[in-house]
């Protein structure tokens, strides 16, 4: 009966993309937010962003929605809307203060994730983007399990160039394979820095073992793109503004836009193939 409830709620969701890593602090939330903004630029598309990082929900701040509260209506919880076609849900909206620590064990976290999926009234959604915490644990197992009620187009996996990150990301790739979650591809963040003054390029996080490129070759997954470091990215996140809108000329913006397009193409193609089969 529960599975049927979830299926009903998620029936109007056309595409679902999970943003994963394995490593913390590589830019999952940053990427999830920009993916949401990028897809919502097309006003004819309805985009939903779900933040299931219960201990460290970054999405409210990154989307400029800190302090917002969730409202209940007859049809469930209302997402918080950034634009008419971009709705957001995060545990951050349920806290009375942004400094409140959510110190929950796995089962309680799973319960909240299920509630998000069951009780949030998303309406008709073209893209549901799910931002996750680092790791391969309760939240990840649960989201894959609960979303099996609908279908997940795939996972976008975020990394930085260094081996200490890749090490954890390889585990995440194995997790995806274990739970039969298709991998749309890998994004390498913090991939080089071009000095705005002297235009010299530095590798702040040197790819000592070949970076995401080598890892993707070895594991036969797609490298969606590399995004260089740009101090404006962090600033935009802190201020709750879309980096793509704040710095349209940045090489990082160009990279992000290319990656977002590739994800969109993957989802559309996937849908088309499914329709063909049906």
């Amino acid at each position, binding site marked *: 009966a529960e599975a049927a409830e979830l299926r009903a709620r998620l029936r109007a969701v056309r595409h679902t993309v999970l943003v994963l890593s*394995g*490593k913390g602090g590589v830019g999952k939330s940053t990427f999830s937010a920009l993916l949401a903004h990028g897809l919502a630029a097309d006003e004819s598309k309805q985009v939903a962003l779900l933040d299931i990082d219960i201990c460290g929900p970054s999405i409210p701040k990154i989307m400029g929605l800190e302090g917002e509260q969730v409202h209940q209506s007859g049809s469930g919880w209302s997402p918080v809307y950034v634009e008419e076609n971009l709705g957001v849900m995060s545990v951050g909206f349920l806290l009375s203060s942004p400094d409140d620590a959510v110190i929950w064990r796995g089962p309680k*976290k799973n319960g909240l994730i299920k509630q998000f999926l069951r009780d949030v009234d998303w309406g008709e959604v073209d893209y549901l983007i799910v931002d996750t915490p680092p790791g391969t*644990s309760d939240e990840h*197992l649960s989201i894959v399990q609960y979303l099996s009620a609908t279908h997940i187009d795939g996972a976008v996996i975020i990394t930085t160039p260094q081996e*200490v990150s890749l*090490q954890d990301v390889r585990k995440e790739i194995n*997790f995806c394979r*274990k739970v039969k979650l298709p991998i749309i591809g890998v994004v390498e963040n913090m991939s080089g820095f071009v000095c705005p003054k002297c235009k010299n390029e530095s590798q702040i996080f040197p790819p000592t073992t070949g970076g995401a490129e080598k890892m993707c070759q070895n594991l036969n997954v797609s490298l969606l793109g590399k995004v260089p470091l740009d101090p404006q990215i962090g600033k935009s996140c802190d201020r709750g503004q879309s980096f793509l809108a704040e710095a349209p000329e940045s090489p990082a913006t160009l990279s992000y836009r290319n990656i977002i397009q590739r994800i969109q193409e993957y989802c559309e193609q996937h849908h088309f193939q499914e329709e063909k089969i049906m």
Partner: protein
Amino acid sequence: VFAERTNLAGVRHILLVLSGKGGVGKSTISTELALALRSAGKRVGILDVDLCGPSIPRMLRVQDSAVHQCDSGWVPVFVGQDKAIALMSIGFLLERLDDAVVWRGPKKNALIKQFVTDVAWGDLDFLIVDTPPGTSDEHISIVEALRPYQLLGAILVTTPQ
């Protein structure tokens, strides 16, 4: 009645390295702190309780090591220039380095308890405990398991943003 000498009986101080946020340098700081204390002549151990993303073995170049058992439990891997820093991490228990540890909370909790009670640390001045990001199972469990011992305190790591 025999008073059992626990595996942590010889540890003088325990330091937790925490954040909340991932990727800010907890494991890096834990490693450097251990090396610096060792340089200053202290006896040091590192307990890596990041079960999903154990970074410490690679940072100390022992990612290919395995652990052995003795009468009092697991023997830590000895690292550092003089092989005098004792290290325990789930990294050493994995069959393959790329194996994902896809465990729910209760299984993680059980292993963390075991890491606290079943590693033969010996006599240490400092035991540094590296944690994963967040405020969840691992953190609750490690604090509960360490409560009977001399918990010196926590060091919190952040970045400026």
